[in-house]
């Protein structure tokens, strides 16, 4: 019985790590589009609609990421430093690439902290 539960937990763990990598990538892509496409379009071409559209889309993606990060960190019992790192890199354009690498490493070495 406990063996099944442990197996379920391991399967849920793999699923959760895949999920946070996908959400991290989504957040990273919307941030890159906002910073490198929408903002220049607004300031250089005067197209206000670019940031008016991408701002809320990135805002929603960021909230989904924060929720998923808190969920994953709580599930695995990650330390505050690890959570802060994943938060900080998500706020930097292309930081999602570094986060994806870190999460891949975490998956390979064991994501549970306790």
């Amino acid at each position, binding site marked *: 019985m406990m063996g099944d539960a442990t197996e379920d937990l391991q399967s849920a763990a793999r699923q959760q790590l895949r999920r946070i990598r996908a959400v991290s990538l989504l957040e990273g892509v919307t941030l890159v589009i906002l910073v490198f496409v929408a903002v220049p379009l607004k300031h250089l071409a005067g197209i206000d609609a670019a940031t008016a559209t991408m701002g809320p889309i990135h805002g929603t993606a960021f909230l989904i990421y924060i*929720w998923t*990060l808190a969920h994953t960190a*709580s*599930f695995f019992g990650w330390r505050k430093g690890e959570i802060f790192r994943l938060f900080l890199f998500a706020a930097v354009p292309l930081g999602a690439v570094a986060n994806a690498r870190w999460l891949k490493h975490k998956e390979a070495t064991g994501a*549970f902290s*306790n």
Partner: protein
Amino acid sequence: MDYLWLKAFHVTSFAVWIGGMLILSLAVSSLPAATGSDAAAPSPMIDAISRWNRWVTSPAMLLAWVFGIALAAQGDWFSAPWLWIKLVIITLLSALHGALSGRLRRRTGILDASPRSFLRFAGPVTIASFLIVTILAVAKPI
């Protein structure tokens, strides 16, 4: 969509989200202590709360965000200071909901029973955040 209709859907989804978070706070505080990476024994009540969280509370949270962002855009509220304070509180509340959901999924209780374990205060924090957010959105003091 009409502003008032958006507002009605935003308030409803926010209320469902907050109600779900209070149930979740109680459920997490009743979980057994963690033992390594093993899952705790299954419980029908915890399973029911987990399903409610997955199919009702979490979608309500997502809808509250979407309707809220649409309201802010339509009402041109993004320059108002109260909205930014509300957004910070909503982000923290979302993180708290994520942390509670993750802990419930693990099926084990609060690992650290010391006063530093913030999940112990999830219920009061949820109510206080709800009060502040409501004051900010309704009274718009700043």
